[in-house]
């Protein structure tokens, strides 16, 4: 009995002085941990050692859910800063993202950097928010948002890969230096020992920042919401429509570009972007749809992101128009 009390006291002492440590062996291993708590990223509301919250300048729209993002980098290591693309996280790192509506947690997606590459796993929370369990086949959860009930879709692991594909390799999408950099965030990562350096560089503006140029905000928005698939190495490479931040080809960006395999996604419109004519632009039509087979992105939303649509509309409207609207094939 005395020994038990002593052990408890000892434990309490440890937890008071040093935070819980992440189960690195689970990140590095090749099992599929059934519960989110198995990783020990959190102890209740407390973050474990070397787990840090972060945010992005412009985020992927996911049915108006709020997202809590965390990064874990193993002790003794740092992520490497890269000017273009995602930060280079060492093996053993994890990216953790919880999707919630107010206090109700729906799912937590983890990206684990294992020795053989990145692995993406979705965990779905129970009703009382005490545990999240692995659902590799995905799930649908009814959620009330903006006054209506939607069928929120937790992606299955294949859908994770559809967006996280880089020539069929799975990679993180969000934590790019240009989309993390808000002037202080990366410096803070360096201070926490998570990142090697934080030089100033290209920055994606907040898409809501009215002081930034419309084109930069819209391009940033498309980069974050579309370019993981619509790139030369992504799932939509065959479309020829590439919406990345650094894309320079006007046709690849969709300007005066006819569709290739849009089907009814064309909405009777002739080109992805008809400059100056948002209502004649397939890109906007598909962003504003919730119809499967029409809606873009194909996965991850069942609602229209009104603010994103408004921004892209404003951008297309601001482009100098061709003398004549593009005529659909008929």
């Amino acid at each position, binding site marked *: 009995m005395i020994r038990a009390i002593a052990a408890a006291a000892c434990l309490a002492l440890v937890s008071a002085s040093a935070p819980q440590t992440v189960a690195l062996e689970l990140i590095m291993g090749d099992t599929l941990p059934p519960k989110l708590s198995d990783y020990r990223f959190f102890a209740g509301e407390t973050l474990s050692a070397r787990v840090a919250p972060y945010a992005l300048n412009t985020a992927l729209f996911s049915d108006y859910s709020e997202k809590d993002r965390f990064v874990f980098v193993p002790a003794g290591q740092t992520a490497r800063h890269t000017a273009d693309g995602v930060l280079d996280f060492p093996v053993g790192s994890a990216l953790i993202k919880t999707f919630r509506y107010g206090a109700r947690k729906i799912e937590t997606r983890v990206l684990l950097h294992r020795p053989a590459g990145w692995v993406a796993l979705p965990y779905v929370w129970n009703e009382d928010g005490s545990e999240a369990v692995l659902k590799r086949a995905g799930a*649908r959860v009814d959620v009330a948002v903006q006054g209506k009930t939607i069928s929120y879709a937790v992606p*299955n692991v*294949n859908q994770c890969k559809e967006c996280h594909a880089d020539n069929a390799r799975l990679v993180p999408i969000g934590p790019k230096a240009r989309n993390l950099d808000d002037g202080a965030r990366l410096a803070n990562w360096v201070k926490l020992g998570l990142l090697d350096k934080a030089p100033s560089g290209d920055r994606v503006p907040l898409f809501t920042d009215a002081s930034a140029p419309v084109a930069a905000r819209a391009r940033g928005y498309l980069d974050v919401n579309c370019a993981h698939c619509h790139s030369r190495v992504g799932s939509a490479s*065959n479309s020829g429509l590439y919406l990345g931040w650094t894309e320079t080809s006007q046709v690849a960006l969709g300007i005066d570009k006819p569709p*290739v395999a*849009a089907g*009814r996604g064309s909405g009777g419109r002739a080109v992805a972007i008809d400059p100056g004519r948002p209502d004649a632009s397939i890109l906007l039509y598909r962003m504003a749809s919730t119809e499967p087979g029409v809606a873009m992105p194909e996965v991850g939303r069942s609602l229209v992101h009104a603010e994103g649509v408004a921004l892209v509309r404003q951008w297309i409207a601001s482009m100098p128009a061709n003398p004549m609207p593009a005529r659909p094939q*008929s």
Partner: protein
Amino acid sequence: MNNACLSLAAASLLLHAPLAARTIDVAAGPGAQERLQGALIDAQPGDVVRLGPGRFELTDGLSLDVARVTVRGAGPGTGAGASVLSLKGQRAAGEGLLVTSDDVVLRDFAVEDARGDAIKSKGADRIVYHNLRVTWTGGPKESNGAYGIYPVSSEDVLIDRVTVSGASDAGIYVGQSKRIIVRNSTASQNVAGIEIENSFEADVYANTVKHNTGGVLVFDLPDLPQLGGHAVRIFDNTIVDNDTPNFAPKGNIVASVPMGVGVMVMANRNVHVFRNRLANNATTNVMVVAYKRPFTDKNYNPLPRDVVVRDNVHGRAGWAPGFAGGKELAAAMGGTLTPVFWDGAGGRAATNVQVRDKVGVVSLGLAQPLTPMTEAKPTPVKLSGGKPIVEPKRVVLPASMEAAIK
């Protein structure tokens, strides 16, 4: 070893243990979505995911990303013994079934009413589609999905004994791929029956292609990762009665296909159309044309080049050409357009289009690809000569693919 270690070892064993191929049975009925998607995720290379008979009422698109998996149903028919994936209740995803891994075999099941494309495979080398039925049960409608069978960006594609109807773009569409066989299949009531686009080395033979808007299309389009479609052979097909009004959503390239085309070759190089039976196609049996839109892609050639049309059997054609000015054109030619026509764009030397069928052939005499059809100056032409064209060799796929359907 403590308990935690033991269970860890057991879990790791589960991930790696199955050296022998397994069969994972999935029955129709409640929870089909999660059970079937779960099986497609849990499958290991070499496994068979076996669909039981009955209807799988799905709520989302399915996907497969494990190599060397066979998805096999109890049959593609319409009776109780068949395995039918119904996407009527699909709430998300761009396709009914998406395959992104190599050496996959899909056989003996049906896919109905996909909201987008029915079965798509991307970057999936050596894929086999065999004995499948894909349909939209409401008949031809603009609101149907675009493609029925849709392999893209892949090497070695075999499509054998599939039936597709109702696609609002192409029933069978192969895009940006290399080494392709489409055979023994039936495409009806689609906008395009079979379409080979931006692809290299394709054999399309022994298919029945009827009651579509256009039968077989061989296209090359600009601004895509794989350009310069070539080495395509269309032979021994029955391509008749293509009489479904075009129901493609506007904006898509196939929306420009006039009703009643047998074979349409647009851009592309080294295309051979031979020994087909072509009849009852109101616009024409075979049309060879340039790509008719402005483009900026410097690597793109909009002209058809080195095209051979020979030894086909022609029935009635050309009595109601479906393109702008077609009616007037037919009237000027004495009521019908010839069973084979070429738009004339680019001229003979640059295109080397050769027609050796014993039927009338007309050049529309368009000066440039962008010259509108309404400015056609139709002239009967003899295209039987020209620079010799070496026909591509038969497409041979890896033996494992043919073995998979034995």
